[in-house]
């Protein structure tokens, strides 16, 4: 199976460890991973801030780069949701505006083939025990686009529960938004920060050492809040936990 890693622009630039973890994990599971160098960004931030027309060239570019692969895997619930949910909608809107089918046709091939990492592991590879080892107390925050957009359900939890040495503890109010929301974090910084602080306090109450999620954008906001509030807790992407083994543990 020829799988393309869509790392996302945020991970590429700020969280290369997550990318390395995905490569390590998928390779360990026998998947042949490729990283198309021409990839950039799915356009989610542009789209969600109200720049649909600026998003279209990015979506076309995404389709050019990834259209030829059997599957596209991304360690980001929100970017997977962008491709799967919003690319079709962009195609429909272009059609409704009398601009024909060209956009919809260009984007169609990538839509069903794009998977968030945990979805790909559970649904496509059919594994929940990926042979990981991570001897820490962990709490899981289901990010909004993964939870409500993609409907990841209990896939991430099932994967975490199968990790050796990992103690999973329940996060109170887990389904509440952490307050990141892309440009929301800047445009409504006060409300965003209040939501982030509440999320961090809820995580602290679990006594976990690690807060885990399947989206580094949310972890950037939560982690930045933890650091400012001097919380002794680390934000860790789920890919890094799943890639961690006794031989090569994640730090």
């Amino acid at each position, binding site marked *: 199976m020829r799988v*393309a890693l869509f*790392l996302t622009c945020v*991970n*590429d*630039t*700020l*969280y*290369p*460890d997550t*990318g*390395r973890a995905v490569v390590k994990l998928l390779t360990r599971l026998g998947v042949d991973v*490729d*990283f*198309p*160098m*021409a*990839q*950039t*960004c799915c*356009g989610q931030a*542009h*789209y*969600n*801030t*109200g*720049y*649909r027309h*600026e998003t279209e*060239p*990015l979506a076309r*570019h995404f389709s050019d780069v990834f259209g030829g692969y059997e599957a596209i895997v991304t360690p980001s619930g929100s970017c997977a949701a962008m491709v799967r949910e919003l690319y079709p909608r962009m195609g429909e809107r272009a059609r409704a505006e009398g601009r024909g089918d060209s956009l919809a046709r260009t984007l169609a091939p990538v839509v069903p083939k794009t998977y968030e990492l945990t979805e790909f592991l559970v649904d496509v590879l059919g594994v929940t025990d990926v042979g990981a080892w991570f001897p820490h107390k962990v709490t899981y925050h289901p990010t*909004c*686009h993964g939870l*409500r*957009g993609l409907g990841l359900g209990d896939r991430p939890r099932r994967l975490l529960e199968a990790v050796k040495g990992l103690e999973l503890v329940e996060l109170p109010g887990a*389904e*509440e*938004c952490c*307050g*990141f*929301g*892309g440009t*929301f*974090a*800047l*445009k*409504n*910084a*006060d*409300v*965003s*920060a*209040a*939501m*982030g*602080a509440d999320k961090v306090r809820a995580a602290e109450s679990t006594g976990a050492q690690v807060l885990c999620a399947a989206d580094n954008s949310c972890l*950037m*906001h939560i982690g*930045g809040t933890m*650091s400012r509030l001097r919380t002794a807790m680390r934000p860790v992407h789920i890919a890094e936990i799943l890639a961690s083994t006794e031989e090569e543990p994640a730090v």
Partner: protein
Amino acid sequence: MSGTFVGMPAFPEAAREAVGNATLRGNLRHATHTIRAKRARAVAELSDWAELREAGRRIKDHTLRHLDRYLEQLEESVTAAGGTVHWAADAEEANRIVTDLVRATGESEVVKVKSMATQEIGLNEALEAAGIRAYETDLAELIVQLGKDRPSHILVPAIHRNRGEIRDIFTEEMGTWGRPAPEGLTDTPAELAEAARLHLREKFLRAKVGISGANFMVAETGTLVVVESEGNGRMCLTLPETLISVVGIEKVVPSWRDLEVFLQTLPRSSTAERMNPYTSMWTGTTDGDGPSTFHLVLLDNGRTDTLADTVGRQALRCIRCSACLNVCPVYERAGGHAYGSVYPGPIGAILSPQLRGTASEIDASLPYASSLCGACYEVCPVAIDIPEVLVHLRERVAEGGPAVRQGNRVLLKPAKGHAAERAAVRAARWALAHPAALRTGQRLASRTRRLHPRTLPGPGRAWTGTRDLPPVPAEPFRDWWQRTHGGKDTSK
């Protein structure tokens, strides 16, 4: 809309104040979390909730598609049942019609059923200007009125108040509006309710004119429906001689059978009750029973403009249950007043900029008053995809585009203050469409990483004021990939 809200600051500024108010945040958090848990239980009791939700969505969509037909049918039925129908294009016209109708009765006082439509048009203020005093009779609405305050929630307008604050308002203000509060009033719920009961009873028995809204209007029979919890609304609907109902045109449903759906979904979504305690229905006038004169004022006020927008029109399906407010994390922190409208929370963020347009600062900021977490869509009993409409309205603010205002097709310019952002988005798009440029930027960031400040200037300060930045890694992923997998890259 109501003059009360003109000149509101944009949402982020209005929200800042609320975020810093610990009492307000505590009151809101407690109230919304309690009701949201109860709602979830009430909804889980019905095995066919998903079907009911879908049925509600379809009935509303069907009615909206044929709104002209159903409104004409409604007018015929209401007239045949002895009522009089008036059409109001906007708030001013609606207020003028109601004021004239009250004047014609020779009265200078009216009692009111809690109604979003009359708040939307600022009816109380308009009546006041004409020398007519309107008394709110819903308990929470009474608290807001006596406190010279503004509602902050669709269903519980005084949700931002706690019992101590309510006791103070009753003690200080009741006397200036009618029967004063009893001596030594405490803040126990029973005593507060009794004080309100005595104060309101005097109003009910004296009033000759009642003013209401309606939750539904049935086209086939001309029947109006109000659902409520306290029974005060029913007093206003049955005791006065003249009843004037002001209702948004989107509230019509084709038939009685359609009520079957909404009378299940509305109470469970709003108050988490299986059935609301009072459902009042009235059809025109009946000799010797209830008001002898009935007027229906059908209010447009931006609704047909909203209907013209294929994405945004779903906001008109709203049955004002307020479930979306109670689950919204932004509403919970910002409070209802920050939305600058009688419709706060997620529904307010999509309804107000459609009814009023996006020209004002507050209206242009409302589509951004959300983290797009999707909790509102999940609970909405008529499946309004609020995040979709928010993004659609952001587009209108950021990029401009076609819209309908007062029945005319117009091409909206982007809202003021978005030029710099638009330029940045374009530049980012250019870099992202040119991978080499992106790579140069990443490398530059990596090489200079030891020089990066902990706090950022300009717009970045919004981030670093409360959150630390992640350290920039020594090497972006794509450089690592090329170094380690260099020969394996098969893409173009």
